[in-house]
């Protein structure tokens, strides 16, 4: 049966720093290449959505003025719907400002802590005396084993690893060559806010290079149900095609109520080479 997905881009006019739009370009193309009908709906100032109308939300980061402008609109017109949707398992991806805003507090550029939407239990604070500069640079982090196994289960023909030491593979749809599914995520971070996870929220990945959530901890991003937050720009999804597929897979499985639904493999040579290059160049030296 032909599948379809509705993606909602929150505040595309206001929260669009750092190539965040690249995430939507990637989701749309990867759906298109698989014959999944994909509609992207912008949701901007003044729009009042209803629950149950979208399969995946995306929210990027913005400049301070814009973040202040949207937060009030978000509280008044959108928070209830998004809270209801995400509690029901709708997929949400927030990057940087879009991640911070979902939490209990977020940080303005002048260091002022401001109430966020409280949809996920994270707090973003100003850097203390121990952190004097922004967290800025290339970021490499490793996803948890459970999520890695979930990702393997998405593909129609994963040559599943027998043990955790062997990388799982899938097949290039164009050349038939095996692709290794990375256990890592790569991106570029640039934030002064220090984010701390509260109860019920898991980190998205363990930091190998760079800072991630805050300069003290070794973890990057957050997950609560199907809500994902990350500091990775770059954009996040182009060089992490396995994570892009994970979001698509979660959205499809939820929409079609089929936990065994799988995705046909794509030819990801270019994406995975860029990913491997980033790990080799910006990750720690391998022994």
């Amino acid at each position, binding site marked *: 049966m032909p599948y379809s997905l509705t993606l909602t881009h929150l505040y595309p006019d206001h929260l669009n720093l*750092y190539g965040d739009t690249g995430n939507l370009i990637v989701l749309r193309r990867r759906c298109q290449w698989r014959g999944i009908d994909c509609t992207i709906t912008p949701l901007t100032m003044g729009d009042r959505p209803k629950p149950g109308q979208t399969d995946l939300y995306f929210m990027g980061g913005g400049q301070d003025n814009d973040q202040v402008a949207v937060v009030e609109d978000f509280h008044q017109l959108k928070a209830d719907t998004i809270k209801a949707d995400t509690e029901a398992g709708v997929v949400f991806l927030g990057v940087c400002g879009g991640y911070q805003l979902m939490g209990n507090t977020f940080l303005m550029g002048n260091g002022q802590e401001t109430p966020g939407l409280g949809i996920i239990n994270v707090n973003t604070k100003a850097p203390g005396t121990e952190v004097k500069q922004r967290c800025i640079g290339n970021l490499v982090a490793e996803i948890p084993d459970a999520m890695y196994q979930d990702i393997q289960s998405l593909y129609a023909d994963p040559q599943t690893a027998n043990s955790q030491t062997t990388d799982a593979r899938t097949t290039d749809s164009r050349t038939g060559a095996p692709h290794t599914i990375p256990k890592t995520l790569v991106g570029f971070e640039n934030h002064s806010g220090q984010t701390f996870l509260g109860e019920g929220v898991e980190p998205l990945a363990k930091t190998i290079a760079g800072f991630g959530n805050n300069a003290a901890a070794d973890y990057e991003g957050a997950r609560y149900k199907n809500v994902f937050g990350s500091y990775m720009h770059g954009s996040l999804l182009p060089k992490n095609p396995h994570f892009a597929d994970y979001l698509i897979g979660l959205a499809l499985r939820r929409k079609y109520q089929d936990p065994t639904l799988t995705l046909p493999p794509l030819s990801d040579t*270019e994406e995975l080479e860029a990913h491997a290059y980033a790990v080799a160049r910006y990750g720690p030296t391998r022994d």
Partner: protein
Amino acid sequence: MNQLLLIPIVAFAKVLTVVLRLSGRGSGTALPGYLVGKYFPFALGVLVQQIPTVVAITGTNGKTTTQTMLDAMVSQGDGIKILRNKAGANLSQGILSELLKQSNALGRLDFTHAILEVEEATLPRIAALLKPQVIAVTNLYRDQLDAYGEIDRTEKLIRDGIAQCPQAQVVVNGDDPRTSRLTQGLPNPTYFVSLAEEYARFLPYEGKLHHREPGTPGLEATDIRINEDLTTDFAIHGTVADQTIEIAQARTASPGFFHVYNALTALTMATLMGLPPDLAIQGLQTFQPAFGRGEILSRQVGDKTVHYRLLLVKNPASFSLSLELLRHIPALKLILAINDNTADGKDVSWLWDSELERLNQAHLDWVLCSGIRAKDMRVRLKYALDQPPATIPTVESIQDAIDQSFAHALPGDTVFVMPTYTAMLEFRKLMGKTLDIV
């Protein structure tokens, strides 16, 4: 008194320059300016005040081209001696180094005009010392975001710079919502340069296009035509310093809408500096594109010559607009060379804000990705193209990219090269060009 104090300072700087050169530690352009600026901050002002006419050009894109165009225009006048800083040397130490280098042993500068390119955040730090008669702001686009964080901040810095110079006449991009509001509430006489709305509305400004009121002082370009050889024709109308200017056809040797703004900005500045507009337009015809900005380099081996046209890309706006130009090129051969060195910006997120999708309307013959981030570039291209080629070659080394493209090209072909800043410098060097310009 200050003038006398200059003598030992200038002597020190000149000796240091020679020592640095002899010891092989660079061309000696940055350190003397840095040290003098740090310990004798008044030197910049004392040096520059000897030059009767000083003008400054700032903004995110087009500073170098506008400076080069204005230089070509002003050179048409009699008895003119122009001092200008080189592209890239647009921080305060770079400007100071140039003044020190050009002065004689007594600290005297024998120039009639200084045409200075000033980096955006540097303007408020040196505006009061420079006291420019004219300040031009080409535009305010988001640049590499890790440089200053936010464009709002850059806008404020430039406004602070202008506020220190109440005597300066200001020329701004009249379509850019950010630059067109820079002098609101300030006493500076302001001139707006703009394109007819049918062109301006396609440009990637942030926010709503500024609407130009009829009768606003400044210049407007109409009837813009980009030619196949990438020259641009346009007509000019407007008023500058109570003079009516009507030019039926002007041509720039550089391609695209950005360069029309640059030409209008340079023409407005030249007119404010007292040059007759007709003479300035004559000067524009002698303008050669600044390095990397539409410049053509040729490589010849035996009987085979291949031309390389460089279109520097530094942010989404310049990338998207250059891609727009390439739609007009038959059988386009393209090298995209992306580095992530400090001068390029370490973050390559901006590739995703650049509208590579515009290549879907181009006649793409072949494309090659190069530079440190060649692989990132290739992913961006793969997702942009409706029908991506089966393989898009990536050649990290720029030397290899030149060799492969030369081997692949037919004699007489023009290959378009879109490099980031350090990739452009490297490309020019490999093609036998020194880093010094005009």
